[in-house]
């Protein structure tokens, strides 16, 4: 199976790989996994006072499509409000990366990671 140029680009030069302080009150962490292939994805967002995502980082252990999907997700989330970030759909990610049908679940994983990170951030804020 051939990867698209965009997947290869994100795989070879992943954007925003790294870690944010998961204990910080303005950081939301999403941890998701795909049991069938064993992929694990951590996606984190740092949110400023006005509710805009000013930084996003990820770390993914998985195939090229999973890495590319989460790399692209962090790129798209930066500068967006939480509500806007939650609107990012797996189908848009899959389309942008030209993922083949067997790799669609990688984009689903990325969408679920975005939602989990936003949810974690909101839960933290609610507790404040």
């Amino acid at each position, binding site marked *: 199976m051939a990867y698209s140029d965009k997947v290869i680009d994100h795989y070879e030069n992943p954007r925003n790989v790294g870690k944010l302080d998961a204990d910080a009150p303005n950081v939301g962490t999403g*941890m998701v996994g795909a*049991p069938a292939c*064993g992929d694990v994805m951590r996606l984190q967002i740092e949110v400023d006072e006005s509710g805009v995502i000013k930084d996003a980082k990820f770390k993914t252990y998985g195939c090229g499509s999973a890495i590319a999907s989460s790399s692209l997700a962090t790129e798209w989330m930066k500068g967006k409000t939480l509500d806007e970030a939650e609107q990012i759909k797996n189908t848009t990610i899959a389309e942008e990366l030209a993922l083949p049908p067997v790799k669609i679940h990688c984009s*689903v994983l990325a969408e679920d990671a975005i939602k989990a990170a936003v949810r974690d951030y909101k839960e933290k804020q609610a507790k404040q």
Partner: protein
Amino acid sequence: MSEPATHFELFGLPQAFVLDAGELDRRYREAVKLVHPDRFVAASGPEQRAAVERAAALNEAYQVLKSPSRRALYLLNLQAALDEEATVQDPEFLFQQMEWREELEELGNSADFAAIDTFRQRLIRARQDVDQEFSGVWQDPAQRPRAERLVRRMQFLDKVLYEVRQLEERLDDF
């Protein structure tokens, strides 16, 4: 047509998670012998086809039952179908997964065989704990969510253990 036999029934084994691997091997070898193509050289076309189909069913059943995680998944699917592609959100375990993967990455750079072996032993112990817990809960319908979470954990542990083997093979090639 009657219900197709379960993988367990094919080998006359009890439908259970804890399984005697030696006994499974023995029954599998006996069963495939009976449908070996050599025995059907003089048989009719339909008989030959039936033997080939039975051999394929035996192979599939054997592969599933031999692997604890596939066996566990199969047992749960017999009770009620499980969404095999569903995203797992089990933060505590996924956090642990991340740590293991990071550790494995570092081990890959160090090429320290003793450390890799210690790491593998830890994973195997974690795996044994999960297997043992699963054997205690899978039959209880009230514990179904727990059982599903444990099967997922087995699958992720299989994956890390597979990557440990890959790493060792890579280092052996040097």
